[in-house]
C-alpha cells in the first residue's frame, strides 16, 4: 500500500439490516476500503454514545453508525432513537473540537450491500482527507477515558 494516511474506522451495524448488507456485499464480492472494522449489535438503538467516545478515545479516526431505514426497524422504531442520540452525540463531539465528518450515520437495508460499500469507501476517503484524529495517544494519555470499567484504561 502507499504511505498515505490510513484511517481506522469503527462501524456499528444492526443485526437485521446493515450487518446483513455487509454480508451481502461479501457474497456479491463488492469491493470497499479495508479501513473499516464492524461491530454487530441487535439494533442501532443499542448504540450507547459512550461506545463512540470509547472508539474515538481509543484511536479510531472515525465512527460509522448504520441502521435500518426509518420505518423499517426490526424493533418497530428504535432506529429513530438512534437518530436522536446521533444528533446529540454529533453536537457534543463538535463542541469537543472533533470534526463532524468523523462520525456518520447511514441507513442501509439488508438488500443494500452495494450502497453500504459505497458509503464506507466514501467515508474512508472523507476521513483520510481530515487526517489523523488530532490528539496524541502515544503517552497513554486519554483525553476521554470513558469506560464502564474504570481500570480498563487503554495503554
Amino acid at each position, binding site marked *: *500500500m502507499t504511505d498515505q494516511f490510513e484511517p481506522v474506522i469503527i462501524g456499528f451495524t444492526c443485526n437485521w439490516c446493515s450487518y446483513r448488507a455487509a454480508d451481502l456485499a461479501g457474497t456479491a464480492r*463488492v*469491493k*470497499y476500503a*479495508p479501513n473499516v472494522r464492524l461491530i454487530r449489535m441487535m439494533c442501532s438503538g443499542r448504540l450507547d454514545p459512550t461506545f463512540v467516545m470509547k472508539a474515538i478515545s481509543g484511536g479510531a479516526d472515525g465512527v460509522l453508525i448504520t441502521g435500518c431505514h426509518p420505518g423499517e426497524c426490526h424493533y418497530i422504531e428504535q432506529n429513530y432513537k438512534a437518530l436522536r442520540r446521533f444528533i446529540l452525540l454529533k453536537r457534543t463531539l463538535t463542541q469537543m473540537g472533533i470534526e463532524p465528518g468523523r462520525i456518520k450515520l447511514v441507513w442501509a437495508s439488508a438488500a443494500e450491500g*452495494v450502497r453500504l*460499500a*459505497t458509503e464506507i*469507501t466514501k467515508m474512508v*476517503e472523507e476521513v483520510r482527507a481530515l487526517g489523523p484524529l488530532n490528539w496524541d495517544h502515544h503517552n497513554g494519555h486519554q483525553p476521554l477515558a470513558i469506560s464502564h470499567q474504570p481500570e480498563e484504561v487503554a495503554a
Partner: protein
Amino acid sequence: MEEITVSIPDTVKPKPIFLEEVSMATPGVSRLEMCIQCGTCGGSCPSGADMDHTPRALFAMIRAGMRDEVLQSNAPWYCVSCYYCMVRCPQEVHVTDLMYTLKRMAIREGYTDHEAAPDFSQTFIGYVEQYGRSFELGLATRFHLTHSPLRKVGIGTLALDMFARDRLSFVPTRIKGMDGLHAILEKAKAITHDAELTGGTQLL
C-alpha cells in the same frame, strides 16, 4: 487505493481497446458495455431503414473490434438526433451520444472524405467560428453549390419564399465578443490536438 474503491477508476489507459476508446470519448457515462443487443435502437430509428448497419449492429461490431467497418458506416451520418433510441434503450445506453462520438472518430481518421453530412457540419461551424452565429443563407448556398448543384435551384426558389417573408438575411450577424470566442475555440482545438498526440482518448 483505486483497486479497492467501488467507484470506476477515472484513469485513461495508454492503449485502450476500441470498445473502451469509443466509450471513453463519449461525454458522461456511455454504458456502451451494457448493450444486450435487443435492437430497440435499430427498431426505433426514423432513418434506420437507410442505415447500412443499425446502431445495435455497430455496437456488436465495436465489441468485435471491427474499427474500419464501424468508422466507414453511414449509420452515424443518418442519425437525426431524435433520441428515441436513447430513451427507449432498456440498458440506458447513450446511443445518440455514441453516434456523435463515431462521427468525430470517422472524421478525425479520414473515413468520410465524400460524405455530405460531415461537410455540412463543417460548413455550418465554419460560419459559427467566423461570426459566432449561424448563417442560413450562406450555409444553404455554399453547401449546396459544393454538393448538389442540381438541387440549388429548388433551394433557390425556397430561399426566395423565405426572403419574401423576411425570414432569410443576406448578411450574417457578428457577435461583439468574436475575438474572445475565437480564442476559446482555438484553445479547445489545441487541447484536443494534444490529446490526439498523447492518446488522451477521453478528450476526443
